[in-house]
Every structure is written in structure tokens, then in C-alpha cells.
């Protein structure tokens, strides 16, 4: 009964492409996140070493993970946008 999306989306010709790059970008981020967790578990003292502008590795890596998430997100959006535009033109 009335089982359709609240807003109709229509077919997405870029879906496969977006899924593929999404997975790769996810794996890249997951690997860096895993490295962060691994350092904390295996070499916790490394985290208090000063590495940049008087900041220790814990702060730089932690802030870095947040900033990198945004950078990756913007790159992903840019790539998806180009592909979606190309598909529109091709139509």
C-alpha cells in the first residue's frame, strides 16, 4: 500500500560508479582509522610524542581524521557530480 519513496528518485545511471568509488574511499578511510586504533593499542606512548607545532601525535592524528573525512567527502561529491552530469548530457 502506497509503498513508494516519499520523493520519487527515478533510475540513477551513475549508481554503480558511485557505489564503486564509495567503497574504495570507505576502505581508504577505514585503513587510516584502523591505523589510529592500532597505534593506540600497540604503541600508546607514541601518541604523546610532539609532531607538529607543539602538538602531540594524538591531537594531530585525531584532528587529521576529522579533516580527512571532510576532504574525502568533497572529492567524492565532486567525482559523483561530474559522472551524473556526464550521464545527463549523454541522455
Amino acid at each position, binding site marked *: *500500500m*502506497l*509503498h*513508494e*519513496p*516519499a*520523493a520519487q*528518485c527515478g533510475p*540513477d545511471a551513475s*549508481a554503480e560508479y*558511485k*557505489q564503486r568509488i*564509495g*567503497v574504495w*574511499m*570507505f576502505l581508504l*578511510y*577505514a585503513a587510516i*582509522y584502523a591505523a*589510529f*586504533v592500532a597505534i*593506540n*593499542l600497540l604503541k*600508546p*606512548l607514541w*601518541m*604523546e610524542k*610532539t609532531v607538529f*607545532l*607543539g*602538538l*602531540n*601525535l*594524538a*591531537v594531530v592524528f*585525531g*584532528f587529521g*581524521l*576529522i*579533516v580527512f*573525512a*571532510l576532504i*574525502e*567527502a*568533497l572529492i*567524492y*561529491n565532486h567525482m*559523483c*557530480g561530474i559522472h*551524473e552530469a556526464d550521464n545527463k548530457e549523454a541522455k
Partner: protein
Amino acid sequence: MAIAIFLTFVAAVLGLSFYFAAKTKSASGYFAAGGQIHWGVNGIAFAGDYLSAASFLGICGMIATAGYDGFLYSIGYLAGWIVALFVVAEPMKRLGKYTFTDALDAKFNSRGIKLFAAISTLVVSVFYLIPQMVGAGVLVEPLLGIPHYAGVIMVGAIVITIVATAGMTSTTYVQFIKGAMLVVFSLIVTVAVLYRGLTTTPDQGGRVPFYQYKTLEAKEVKGALVLADKAYAVKGSVPVKTETYVKLENSGVQTWWQRSDRDGKIALKETQYEVKKADGSKLVNGLPASKENVLRQNGGLESIKGKTGPEAATGPVGPFEFLSILSDPETKVNTWKIVKLSDGEDKVTVYAPSVKPGNKLMRPGLKFKVEGTPVQKLDFLSLMLALFLGTAALPHILIRYYTVPSQACARKSTIVAIAAIGFFYVLTMYMGLGAVINAALNPVTDNMSAPLLARTFGTFLFAVISAIAFATVLGTVSGLIIAASGAVAHDLMDRYLQLGFNEKQKVRAGKIAAFVVGIIAIMLGILFQGMNVSFLVGLAFAVAASANLPSIIMILFWKKTTAKGIAASIVTGMVSAIGLIMFSPSMYDKFGLNPATAPVPLDNPGIISIPLSFLVLVAVSLFTQKKEASAA
């Protein structure tokens, strides 16, 4: 003034709610805001949804008391958005209508999926509601001077009113306004913290006189403790694990002191404490508890890069310099630990000083024992896994993908959310540390650290920050209750039981469900008083990641996934995660049992329940391949 600002805020939220109520008539409007919200607005509303009491109150509080360990929650919560953006956002938008169950069930049309996904949505929403309600109670206690339970009931009543009137449209705009204000005012508090700088004699901008805790010299003579200051007489001592707490009397007032033996010298350090007497009366720091006689706020710096006194004060500092100074091993931060002991029939809770060097405060280890036993390390790993995988499985986050018109808008709103949330999480570091260095911490609960920090800059900022925090709770609870009511009215009643509701009946059923869930949330909020809200949210993430994420991932990436596999995975993830939590040390402690006897050594269940849920999905799907193929 604080109360006036606060009430204005609540009135504005309710006004907005009633305004949109007039416009919301359809089920699509109630559950998914008609699918017509702009992606920019939706992105900030995402931030509003996500930056709940856990983020604002819980993370700041945990950073204030456990340093960098609190910030790990910020990192994990933000990293979870990567899973949401790259893996879940667009497919969820493509597959669903109102709820996450729709998306899971789009391919199969299975009654089993409808039932269990709806139950999972309900359970996760209720788990997530608990910390929000606890946060609400904590907030209104100092602001309006009413007890915790009254605060919880008040929030519950307001939220039920909001949800029962307008649904997702009002919730979206409330979240948008609140999300934006939260980030802006957190930035203002952060700039104020940096401008004030660091000092070893914090006086909250002249509002609260700096209090210097005393240290008394003592020596042992024939086994008895003798003090150099003859004004004090020793009245007894109680050993607690490796430490000793000494009861002294001065001018008829009894006080508790922490004994320290170092280099052959004995020192007694002043503590704060509460005594619960057998007759039910309560003493605070030796005198009867009253509105005036409460525990002093804790925190402050013992030394700044090895310096103390006026010469140690830094004046305004930059954001990097601030963190650099606090990471220095010669910067000593005053924290405290809670020690419970018995003195005859009296139950004593001592808040004993515990000085931490900056290098330890600013790396993981104070709360999460990353240098501890393998089990403790596993617990940390389990938490980080659940935080990473939990975001993309939260029902109230997933339903927000249905409020925008297209997949591209779902993606863009997620990116706006990442920017806003990421920026806010950076600010949590400064607000949490700002609260401790300004000695603005309530020793009993760390959840109020951010509002109490704001109070050191004046009543106006305190009122605004408290009102935003309160709106944070209102907004998040509204979103959660809508998710839960959608699960009941749309998934269970309409689609599973096939009651054949029309649009109007579905909205009415949703509102009744919202009322019932709201009442449950109120009761749980009262029951879980005193626990750190971020810790509680971590548990909700673990349940969400265990019950929902394996199904979402596998349905997108594994063609052999079957309906029975999904249903089994949801049940396994939900039951195992909740079961492990119930028998964990934290829950044993909460319910007055000895945490050491808890059968599950982990506080965070994700490391067991998430892989288990994946495994069950794969095994059941493989086992049911032929049956489903032949049935088809």
C-alpha cells in the same frame, strides 16, 4: 534572566512545531517531511540530530574528566559518517519510503524483515533515548532548580507535544536552527576560553573566588598519626585498597583527608565529601547539605609548564598553543576520583584529588586502559568499532535520507553534516579542556561541564548554552520518537499486520505510538540518572551496529542475502548486544552489584555482537538459498 532566555527558547520551539502542524496532514509529511527539504537545511538538521546530548554534554564532560579519551568519542562518531556517506546514503534513499525497514524490505517484501527491523528500530531508538533523557534531567536541575526526575518528565511532555503535533517537518527545522546555534555558540565559548588563557588560580572571571585546597603535614608516633597543625585532631582512618582516608576534626567540624606517604613524609590532602547518615540526613564537607552548602566545582591547573602562581598565567593563547601547553608533562591538571567508604553506619563518598600530567591527559589511557590487560584493550577496540559502524545504522539518522528530494541531495546533505559535525567535534576538545582548567566541573556528574564552563563567562552565555543544550535534547528525542513511531505505525501496524490504514489513520497511529514511547523514555531517563550520557550513547551505537548494519551492508553488496538471513541477523545482533551489555561490569555497577563478578568482562559489546550478526546472516542466507529460490 537565565530562566527567561530558556523559556523563550522552549516557547519558540513549540511555536514552530504548532506552525508546521497546520501544514502536516499526510503520512509522507509526518514521517518524511514530504521529501522536500533542501539538502543544505537537511545537512545542518543532520548535525542537529546527531549532535545530541551525548555529543554536547557527554563528550565535553568526558574530555573534562578523562582528557583525550573523551575526544576518542568525537573521532569515532565523526568517522561513522564516512560509512553513512560512502556506503549507505544513496542506496537508502533509493530503496526506502519512510523508514529503514522499507529499505531492507524493498527487495524481499518479507513479513519477518518487517517485524524484526521494526523491533530493532524501536529498541535502538529507546536505547538512544535513555542518554538524551538523562541529559535533560541533568540540564534543568541547576537551571530551573528542579529535581532530575522533574526535568526528565518536563522534556518528555514537551517532546510528546512536539511530535504529536507536527512530525518530521517541525523536527527538521528545529534541528536546523538548533544545529546552527550549537556550532556558533560553541565557537564563541571556545574563543572565550582561548582569550582567557590558562592560570593556576582560576576564579571564573572573578565570579567564584579561587579555592586553595589544604595539605597538612603529619608523622607517625608509636603507630598513631600526629599532625603538625594542632587545630586538627585525628578521629579515625579507613583503608581503601592501597590508600588511606583519615577523618579529622577542627572546631567541631569533621572532615576527610587523603593520606599520602612519599619520601618518608606523610601529608594529608584535603578532599570534598558527602556523608549519608543512617537517619537519611546528608552532610556536605562536614556541614548539613543545603542549597548554599553544595560541593565546590572541581578542576584547575596545579602548574603550567612547571610554573605556578601569577607568573604561570598565560593570557590569551592560540588554539595550537593551548593544546601544546596542556600536552606538556610539566603541566599538571587537577582531576579527582570518587571513593566510597563506610564510617560506622555512615556512607561516605569522597572526591579525592588526583593530579594528572599533561602528557598523560592528552593521549588515550586515563579512561580506556590501552596499556592495560588484553581484555581492557579489546574493550577499547570494541568501542571504536561500534562508533565507526554505528552511525550508519541509527534509525533516526537513516530516516533523514527520506526528507530530501533525490539521491544527490542525500549525498550533499551528508557532506554538509560532516563539515558541521566535524567542526563541532574539534570545538569539543577546547570546551572540555576549558571546563577543567577553569575549575568548572561538578564532581558528582561530568555531564554539565559545557554549560558550567559557559557560566564562567556570565549568566547570558550560560542561559543560551543551556537552552541550546535543552533544545538539543528536545530535537534529538523528537527525531528518535518519530523513528520509533514510524516503526510501530508504518512497519508493524500497517505493513506487518496489514491493518490497511489510510493516511490519516497511519498518522494517528504514529502519534499514539509517539506518546507511548515518550512515556517509556521518561521512565528510563529517571532510572539511569548519573551515568555519563556519551557512554550510554556508545551502547546504543553498539546495538545499532550489531542489529542493523550487517543487513544494510550485505543487502547492498552480497547477492546471496536472503530475507531469512536478514531477519536472523537483526535478531542475533540485537539480542547479543543487549545481552552482553546487561551482564557487563558497568551495568553490574549501576545496579549495585560487584562489577568484578560480571560474567562479561567487556563494557562494549560490538567486537562480539557485530561479527556474530554478520556470520549469522551469511550462514542463514546460505542455508536458505534453495528454499527461497524454489519458493520464488
